[in-house]
């Protein structure tokens, strides 16, 4: 059987569960000055599963203080809206798209995505890019893999096998099996989900950003490489991909200087990972 073509992917996108409503709200709020805490609190409180995960995460964030957080309101007061939004966004995605079959474990994808999102937020804080956009784009950058796996699990597993056995980048292995990669597939899924253009660009550009001229694309590409370099998630097959010189230059990045933030990135990633239980 041949692999599904790029043109056929939009039909397969419908087979994936839709984005959780709270994720849609948080993504829309990125570009909306009128988004407010009350609406976010309403979205959170209307879903008991989200409240439960938020409280678990909030209690984990404050683990060293032996202080219990009992309500979403308390969590907001202690952690602030930005942290709450990050926790909700990540946990809603992780639990909605928790595919686990032999050979493909979405948890590993989300752990890597959380690593990229953490690097993206810190890089954004240092380079003047919107940190919330950076974090969200980092979390979503690999969603193309979910679509490719849904469209044809056997072909996706074949690409994963090639990636591991031949020690080649996954996107190169995908091209050899499907004729396109998860950046292309991610662009199609992000378009089907009506995500903002910035996030679509970040997803499409994250492995080869030079042709896109997108600031957020450059930032997510560098974050992808940095996350691998700091071994966030410690995948056994981890190998740092090639890094675009142009993307680094456009962001005004100097590694000897930015290295002062490596320890902070690791601390923030560990905190997040433990809080989310992944």
């Amino acid at each position, binding site marked *: 059987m041949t692999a599904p073509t790029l043109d056929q992917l939009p039909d397969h996108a419908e087979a994936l569960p839709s984005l959780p409503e709270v994720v849609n709200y948080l993504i829309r709020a990125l570009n909306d000055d009128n988004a407010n805490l009350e609406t976010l609190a309403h979205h959170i409180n209307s879903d008991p599963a989200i409240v439960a995960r938020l409280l678990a995460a909030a209690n984990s964030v404050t683990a060293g203080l032996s202080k219990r957080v009992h309500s979403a309101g308390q969590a907001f007061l202690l952690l602030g809206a930005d942290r709450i939004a990050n926790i909700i966004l990540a946990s809603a995605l992780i639990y909605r798209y928790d595919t686990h079959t032999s050979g493909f474990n979405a948890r590993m994808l989300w752990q890597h995505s959380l690593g990229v999102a953490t690097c993206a937020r810190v890089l954004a804080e240092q380079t003047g890019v919107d940190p919330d956009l950076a974090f969200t784009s980092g979390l979503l950058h690999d969603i193309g893999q979910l679509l490719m796996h849904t469209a044809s699990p056997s072909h996706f597993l074949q690409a994963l096998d090639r990636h591991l056995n031949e020690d080649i980048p996954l996107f190169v292995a995908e091209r050899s099996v499907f004729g396109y990669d998860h950046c292309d597939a991610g662009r199609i899924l992000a378009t089907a989900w009506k995500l903002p253009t910035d996030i679509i660009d970040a997803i499409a550009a994250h492995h080869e950003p030079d042709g896109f001229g997108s600031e957020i694309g450059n930032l997510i590409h560098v974050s992808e490489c940095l996350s691998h370099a700091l071994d966030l998630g410690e995948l056994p097959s981890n190998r740092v991909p090639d890094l675009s*010189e142009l993307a680094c230059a456009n962001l005004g990045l100097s590694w000897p200087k930015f290295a002062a933030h490596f320890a902070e990135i690791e601390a923030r990633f560990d905190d997040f990972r433990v809080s989310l239980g992944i």
Partner: protein
Amino acid sequence: MATKQRILCLAPGRATPGITLARAITDREGSILLSAGTVLDLAMLERLIRRGVDAISVLVPDNRDEATIADELRAAQRRIETIFRGPGNPAREQLHAAVLNYRIESTK
């Protein structure tokens, strides 16, 4: 003999009261919130979380002997060489150098 100490970076919620700051904590404008050497109590840690401070550098006892440190350094260097295996472009080499240097300094 004074106990040897090392610097760890962690989220304020993962620190326990009584721990000592290794580096000053500044806000986004660069003003010092707490100076190096401050012993953090519960109220300070809670305030740091509320202010959105995501990571702090603290001093922890270092009970490792020289042989253990040497083993850890070798393991860290081996891991870096593994994840940077194969040919890479110049930008990747610069990242490689920065991460290797960071790993060595933070393991010592």
